C-alpha cells in the first residue's frame, strides 16, 4: 500500500504544480480539480471521510466549475495576455527543496500518518461513505457537473458565434 500512497502524494504535488504553472487557464483549472480529488483521497486515507467528502464537493466540484466558468468568461471578454512567468518556473525547485526538507525532518510524522491510514482503512470505503450519508450531495455534484458542462458549452458556443 505504501507505493499507492506515495504515488498519490506525488500525483497531488504534480497536479498542484501544473495548476500553478500552466499557461492555459483551463488546464490550470482542471489540474486544480485533479489536485482536489487527490487531496480528497488522501484525506480519506487518513480516516477523515467528512473532510474528504467536502473536499470533493466543494473544491473538486464547485470551485472548479466556478473557475472554469470565470475563465471562459474572461476569455470571451478579452484576449489572453502574455505575462512574465519566470517566477513560476522557480516553483518546482522551491517545491523540491521543501519536499526534501520535509522528508528528512518529518519522517516520524509520516510514519504516524501511515498508522492512521491503516486504522482508517478498516472503516468505510469512500463510495459507501458518500452513498450512505451524503446521497443528496451526489445529486448536487451531478447537477454541478451538468451545470459546468452546460456553462462551458454555452459560453464557448457564444464565443464561437461571436467570432
Amino acid at each position: 500500500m505504501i507505493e499507492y500512497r506515495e504515488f498519490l502524494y506525488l500525483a497531488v504535488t504534480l497536479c498542484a504544480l501544473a495548476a500553478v504553472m500552466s499557461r492555459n487557464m483551463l488546464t490550470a483549472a482542471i489540474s486544480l480539480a485533479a489536485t482536489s480529488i487527490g487531496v480528497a483521497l488522501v484525506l480519506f486515507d487518513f480516516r477523515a471521510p467528512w473532510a474528504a467528502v467536502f473536499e470533493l464537493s466543494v473544491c473538486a466540484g464547485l470551485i472548479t466549475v466556478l473557475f472554469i466558468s470565470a475563465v471562459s468568461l474572461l476569455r470571451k471578454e478579452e484576449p489572453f495576455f502574455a505575462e512574465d512567468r519566470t517566477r513560476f518556473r522557480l516553483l518546482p525547485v522551491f517545491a523540491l527543496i521543501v519536499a526534501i526538507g520535509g522528508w528528512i525532518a518529518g519522517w516520524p510524522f509520516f510514519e504516524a500518518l501511515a498508522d492512521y491510514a491503516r486504522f482508517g482503512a478498516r472503516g468505510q470505503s469512500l463510495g459507501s461513505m458518500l452513498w450512505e450519508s451524503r446521497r443528496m450531495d451526489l445529486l448536487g455534484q451531478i447537477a454541478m457537473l451538468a451545470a459546468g458542462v452546460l456553462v462551458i458549452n454555452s459560453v464557448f458556443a457564444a464565443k464561437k458565434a461571436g467570432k
Partner: protein
Amino acid sequence: MTISLLQYMLIPLFSALLIPFVARRRGKLAEIFANVTLLAGLINIGWTLLSPAVLASGFSVLAEDGFSLLMVLTIYLVGLCVSFFSASYGQGRGVNTAYFYPLLLVSVAAMCGVVTSTDFFTLYIFVEVLAVASFALITSDDGREGVEGAIKYYLLTFPASAAIMLGLAVMLLSAGTFSFDSIRIIVYSGASAPALVFSLSLLLLGFLVKSGVVPFHVWTPDAYQGAYAPVSAFLAGIVTKISGVYAVVRIAMFLRLFETGAFRLSEVLMFLGMVSIAVGAIAAMKQDDLKRMLAFSSVSQIGYIVLAAGLATPLAFIGAVFHLFNHATFKTVLFLNSASLEKAAGTRDMTRLGGMEHPMPWTSWTSVIAMLSTAGIPPLSGFWSKLIIIIALWDAGAVTYAVLALLFSALTLAYFLIMQRRIFFGKKSPAAETASEVSPALLAPAVLMSAVIVAAGLLFPYFFSYLAETIASRMVL
C-alpha cells in the same frame, strides 16, 4: 430530502441533459421540451396542492413540508413564465437555445434541490449549483452588459460562499452534523453551544448576502440591471429568493433559534430587514433605469421577509412565506414587463419613455396590478402578506417596526407611481409613437402572473389556512 419531492428536481435535470442531444440543431424543439417539462411539473405540483381531496381536508392530508411544496410551486411557476417568455423574446439576440434552456432547467432543478434539502451542506451545494447556472444565464445574450453583470454577481456574492463554508466548518466542529433535524434537537435541548450559534450566524450572514439584504445588497442592482432581460426576471423573481431568502427563513423557522439563545441575532435580522425596507425604497425613488429601480424595490421587499423571519413567530412565518410567494409573482411580472418594454421601445431608460400605455395597454395594466400588490394595496395579495407581517410584529410587541413597515408601504407606492407616470402614463414620448404591444406569447406570462396575484389576494383565506396548517401548526415541536 423528502423523497416524494425528488421528482421535481430530477426530471428537469434529466430534461436538461437530454436537450443538448436531441435538440442541438433545432432550437424550437429545445423550447418546447423545456416548456413542456416545466408545465408538466407545474400541473403535477398544482394537483398535489390543490386537488379536491386536499382542499376538502383543509390541507391537513399533505404530508410534505408545506414550505417546500409552496416553493416548488413557485419555482415552477416562475420558471415556466420565464421560459415561455424567452421562447418569443430571444430571437435575434444570439441566445443559444440548446444551452439556454438546459441551464434554465438546471437552475430549476437546483432550486428544487435547495428547497427540498434537509441538511445544510446539501443546501449549500445546490445554492452553488444555482449560482453557477445563473451566472451563465446572465450572459445568455450577446450584449456586453451581461458579462459585466455576471462578473459582478460572481465577485460580490463570493464572500457569501466563504462565510457559509466557514459556518459549515464551525457547525461540523461543534455539532458534528448538518442535518436540520439534528441541529434543531440540539438547539432545543437547551445545550446549544455558543459555537453552534456562531456557526448559524455565519450561515445566516452568507445567505443574507445572497439575498441582497442591506448592507449586502450592492451586487443586486448591477446584476439585475446587466442580466439578459428574461433572466433578470428569473433572477429577481425566484433565484435570489431561493438561494438567499429561503435559507434565511428556513434557518429562522426550523431552528427557532431566537427563542432559545441568540435573541440578539433575531434583533440584528429584524434591524437589517427594516434597514433594507428603508434603503431599498429610498434608493428606488429616483432611478432612471427601470431594472435598476426594480432591483432596489426587490431589496426593499426582501426586507419585509427578513423582518418577519427575524421575528420568528408562527404568524410571522406565515407572513414571510406568503410574502416570499407574492414577491416572486409580482417581481416576475414587473421584470418581464421591463423586458417587453425594452423589446417594444428599445430602451428601458425612463427618461426616454412615457405614454407607453397607449401602445402597450396590457403591459401597462399588468404592471399596475403588480405594483399595487407590491405596495400593499388591497385586496391584492401583497396587502395580505404585509398585513400579516405587520400584525405579527405588532402582536410580538415590535410596534415600532410594525408602524415603520406600514409607513414604508407608502414609499413603495410612491416610487412605483413615479415609475408608472414616467413610463406608461404621462406625456407620449417618441418611443411611444413607434412602439406597439408585444406579442401575446410575451404577454401571456405577465397576464398569468397578474391573475395569480389577484387570485392570491381574493383567495387569501385558502392561502392562509394552507400556511397555517402546514407551517405554523407543524412548527411547534
